[in-house]
């Protein structure tokens, strides 16, 4: 079942066409990826899906409801959550309070009155929060201020915050960026556990790390989709080889003909 659909979406920044007439669908419980070189328009497209800014043209539907001009908060209410390319947490709060904020909004109405009537302390020993601390191996860092964590720990916390909200669609913007190999494996293990439970869309440069569990890959170049399908199918696509791997297909062909 189609859960997310972008139809003929275009986004311009002045003369630059960052996303050019892109149509894309995401299906329920699918784990899909978008790859492309720098400036391909991946993150801009991602931002359009999450409501960071609206498209200049085209529409975005979530479960057949048009959400093109909905705010991020409205999309969160529908169950769409995202992480950021640069790790995004609240560095001036403790790990546990970051999780409390994520949990409270997802499971309570979080009106201003509720925010006034509830203290962080009341929710710090919540079962779900305790469980997620265990899952993400953050238990020992519980009371530490986030500014004192390593990049890998912050990345785990960011994904933990998103998971805690139990979103229906999880959009991950370069979740492996800047991580050491051991940290990459830890994050991948967490993502593997979510397969079949959530719809996940990953924008990632390190394609070799995620290729095994991506069910579908979409390759973007200069704001447009140039290939879509399985990993091998995409990687052997001439346009992808030219733009993504920067392989000179014509020279290769001539060399093959010459030999």
């Amino acid at each position: 079942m189609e859960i997310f659909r972008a139809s003929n979406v275009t986004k311009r920044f002045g003369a630059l066409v960052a996303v050019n007439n892109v149509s894309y669908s995401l299906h329920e419980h699918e784990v899909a990826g978008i790859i492309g070189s720098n400036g391909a328009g991946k993150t801009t497209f991602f931002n359009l899906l999450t409501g960071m800014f609206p498209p200049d043209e085209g529409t975005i539907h979530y479960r057949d409801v048009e959400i093109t001009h909905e705010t991020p908060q409205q999309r969160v209410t529908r169950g769409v959550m995202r992480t950021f390319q640069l790790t995004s947490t609240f560095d001036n709060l403790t790990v546990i309070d970051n999780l409390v904020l994520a949990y409270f909004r997802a499971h309570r109405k979080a009106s201003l009155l509720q925010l006034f009537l509830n203290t962080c302390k009341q929710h710090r020993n919540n079962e779900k929060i305790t469980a997620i601390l265990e899952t993400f191996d953050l238990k020992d860092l519980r009371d530490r201020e986030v500014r004192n964590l390593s990049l890998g720990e912050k990345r785990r916390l960011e994904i933990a915050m998103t998971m805690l909200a139990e979103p229906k669609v999880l959009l991950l913007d370069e979740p492996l960026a800047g991580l050491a190999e051991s940290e990459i494996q830890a994050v991948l293990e967490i993502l593997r556990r979510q397969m079949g439970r959530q719809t996940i869309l990953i924008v990632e440069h390190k394609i070799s790390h995620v290729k095994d569990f991506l069910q579908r890959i979409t390759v973007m170049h200069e704001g447009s989709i140039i290939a879509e399908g399985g990993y091998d199918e995409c990687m052997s696509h001439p346009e992808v080889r030219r733009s993504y791997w920067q392989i000179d297909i014509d020279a290769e062909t001539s060399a093959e003909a010459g030999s």
Partner: protein
Amino acid sequence: MRKAFDWWWGIALAFSLLAAMRAFLPLPFVNEILIFSIYAIGCSFLLGRVGFISFGQPAYLAIGAYGTAFYLFYFGTNPYIGILAGLASGFIAALIVGPLFVRLRSDYFALVNLALAVIVFFLMQKVLAPITKGDNGLWFLTNMTSTPVLDITRPSQFFVFAFIVGLAIWAFYKYLDDTLFGACCLATKINEDKLQFLGYSNFSIRLAAFVIANTTTALAGSLYAVYIGAVSPEITSPARAADPVVVILLGGAGTLYGPIVGSIAYTGMKDVISKLIGNWEMIIGPLLVIIMLAGEKGIWGTLEPWLKTLLFRNKSVVPQKNSSIEGN
């Protein structure tokens, strides 16, 4: 019991100090400190919690003071109702300008608030002069009637009232620090995008913080009006716009008790130095620069760890969550 003490020790210490000062120092001086610290706490909350620096606090102070003054000069004689009128004026004014101002970035926020202070100054001095009596101000000291139980028209009983109000305000801000709203304020200060993508409204959180902070400032204006028994446009002079900012930087920006400590230090320095030389600003200015260069955390921010160690001895019982708004 121990936990309750941990939670309240800062407030207890700060107000014990104020109570002790009452025994040794002149009443006007202590009353001025109380009013000034209530004036500064709103500004401190905006800066420390939400990341908004405001040079427009005199505007909200004046709105509270004139709200009280109009009531006591034109309509009634009960100073308590006058204070409520000032409080309501500040709340309504913040609710009107807040939706416009909180959308701005911190630097523009500072300037637009300063502009508001200038506007209020000229409104009170010129445009509304037939009502405000211009530079002469409104004098209503003799209009106020004595009130039962606590007669706040008398300076000594005003001190008790201001002390109770101050204690209540600090308890309220301490509670706010611990609420999810307080955490959201810190979150919007450092990462508004993330907060938005968790589903919170940055606008609502900032607006609520703005209204709370400036209603507190208006309350300080009301207390000032009742204490002095008069209000003039001088209260909203743009020349005094930096006063609360200086006080909280001096006391410790973003700390809960910084405004009290800063008020004591600033009012004290002003009082002592102005007795020695006429142009006291010439001494205060460089002194402030030296104090701030010596420690960016301000007086309270520097002293707090020492005091905790001294009071609790065993470091393990030192509260994890210090009283610093920043450090929540």
